[in-house]
């Protein structure tokens, strides 16, 4: 997994509450069997005015000019500023895949849906939860200043203004932080406990033997 240390980038808005993962990446794109190439279809149903199809070349598609990610001022944004309960609904990991593939490395919102939040960390994407008041202020600053950028420092768990004058602390639990900083393979980490897993499993076979019946019917 791609590691995350410090990200300095342009901030783009997703100014609505309860953004669901269907909106982030609509279902027709979930038919793919690979992990890459979803960025072209990120927010497809509100980014384009036609209905997208999987595998489609998006270069000639009609754009929704109102949509921020189609506006030049947010070009190359790597930080998405959003509202409450971002990423609710379906557990599809295609949502963080699409955000990451598009070029986002960090999402700032007052709150995130549990499954989406967890999925981000598996894909080098950092979700940062800040209070609604702070997020409001960031929205105001972003709208006021074209090219508004922020610095996201995971090691020190702070969001900084580009001049360093403002520092906003945030919290990420230490396991997720460490994995993201190091770009760790979580399966490798878990397999370090394989003897403990076997031990648990053997005890379980004695106490709950019906959970170990063959399912070859």
């Amino acid at each position, binding site marked *: 997994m791609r590691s995350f240390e410090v990200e300095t980038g342009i901030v783009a808005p997703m100014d609505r509450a309860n953004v*669901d993962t269907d909106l982030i990446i609509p279902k027709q794109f979930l038919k793919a069997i690979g992990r890459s190439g979803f960025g072209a279809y990120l927010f497809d149903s509100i980014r384009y005015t036609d209905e997208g199809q999987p595998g489609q070349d998006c270069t000639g598609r009609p754009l929704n000019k109102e949509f921020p990610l189609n506006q030049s001022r947010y070009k190359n944004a790597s930080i998405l500023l959003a509202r409450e309960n971002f990423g609710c609904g379906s557990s599809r990991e295609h949502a963080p895949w699409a955000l990451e593939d598009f070029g986002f490395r960090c999402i700032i919102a007052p709150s995130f849906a549990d499954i989406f939040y967890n999925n981000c960390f598996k894909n080098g994407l950092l979700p940062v939860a800040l209070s609604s008041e702070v997020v409001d202020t960031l929205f105001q600053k972003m709208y006021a200043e074209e090219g508004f950028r922020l610095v996201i420092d995971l090691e020190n768990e702070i969001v900084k203004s580009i001049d360093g004058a403002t520092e906003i602390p945030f919290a990420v639990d230490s396991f997720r932080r460490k994995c993201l900083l190091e770009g760790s393979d979580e399966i490798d980490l*878990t397999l370090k406990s394989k003897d*403990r*897993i076997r031990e648990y499993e053997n005890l379980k076979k004695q106490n709950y033997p019906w959970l170990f*019946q063959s399912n070859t019917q």
Partner: protein
Amino acid sequence: MSGQTLYDKLWMDHLVEERDDGTALIYIDRHLLHEVTSPQAFEGLRLAGRNLWRRDSNLAVPDHNVPTDLTERQGGIEGIVDATSQLQVQTLEDNCVDFNVKQIPINDERQGIVHVVGPEQGATLPGMTIVCGDSHTSTHGALGSLAHGIGTSEVEHVLATQCLVQTKMKNMRIDIFGSLQAGVTAKDVALAVIGQIGTAGGSGYAIEFAGEVVKSLSMEGRMTLCNMSIEAGARMGMIAVDSTTIDYVRGRPYAPKGELWERAVRSWKNLCSDDGAIFEREIRIDGASIEPQVTWGTSPEMVLPIAGRLPSPEEATDSTKREAIRRALEYMDLAPGTPVSDIPVDRVFIGSCTNSRIEDLRQAAQIIKGRNIAASVKQALVVPGSGIVKAQAEEEGLDKIFLAAGMEWRAPGCSMCLGMNSDTLGDGEHCASTSNRNFEGRQGFGGRTHLVSPAMAAAAAVTGYFTDVREFLRSDSI
């Protein structure tokens, strides 16, 4: 020492290792797979040269992409017209062969929606931890299990290690006391709960549903309720084991038999919250106060009783909510103040992991029997949750009732809940749907979803508008 909640017990019982950083390694008993969220996980195993930790914990079934049209379905995988859907279903089959995972194939009678199939086959048992790359895995909590959806990276993690790295959730109890009015179902309870606590109300919590209303629900109703926990923001919802649970599980193909069954039942009797268990949040709802529900907007929390009128943006307390109402009304092409019963219905969908079990179909059939769908309704789909449900319904003659009313009787699958197959809404169409999400475009590009119970969907099919199903029940009893 205070008592433990059901969630505390399930957590402790699956705790492999606690770590200093506050995370824990949790053992997974049952891993369910389907074609959409598993291909990248199997590919990940291949790339890393890893194998399965425990083959017999896994059970796979294709459901999201499968055609429900009876003719297209007859052709099996080769017969799937959409090439990308076909490839995905074929990939599941190939992966199951390569990794020796048990798959219930597309035209096996036991095939169906993964969250219908698990409990039906007894692959879901009380006391288990159950995960699946699908957020509606919360359904299985109805059997007193700890069940939640995961992403594809975690699918791979479970395949390779049989464990997940987790942090413990907080406990929430939703006590639904009293009794329900006739015509009010588990779906209405679920929607009323979401209307009350909001779509993020359960974030960070494991929900336990309790109270007289929950105890009196059938297993099908309990599954409907737990299924929609995720729509209240909670990854998992659960219900204590009682005789209803045990009677449901008994005799199912994967359930233990003989002496093992007796032993299992003894252990399952402990699967309830202790007296004095501490819940960080408790909600109490009077069952008698719940009316038949209809969602009007683009989030499940945008829900009203059938007698309600649509809100206006000005009623909202803050600008984000105001904007959300404005946007939802615009997307749904509905005006503030419109009575719910004035919303016309273009299509009807009865199905999905929320409401496609035999009891759901019986409830819909009871309303539709002897009636016809309105001329203005373009299509009314009835999609059973599994081949077993389909066969049972046909044995009871329910298919004949639906067909006689002008509805379509289909083969099992996820179908129009998310429209990954060809069952989709047209741009701008309103649908009375028994599914779980009314998000923009969920059932088709530009489609407008209204979530309702199966009985309410059937009533809407008859009149062409949302209609209080209790009026039907009254006229039927005269």
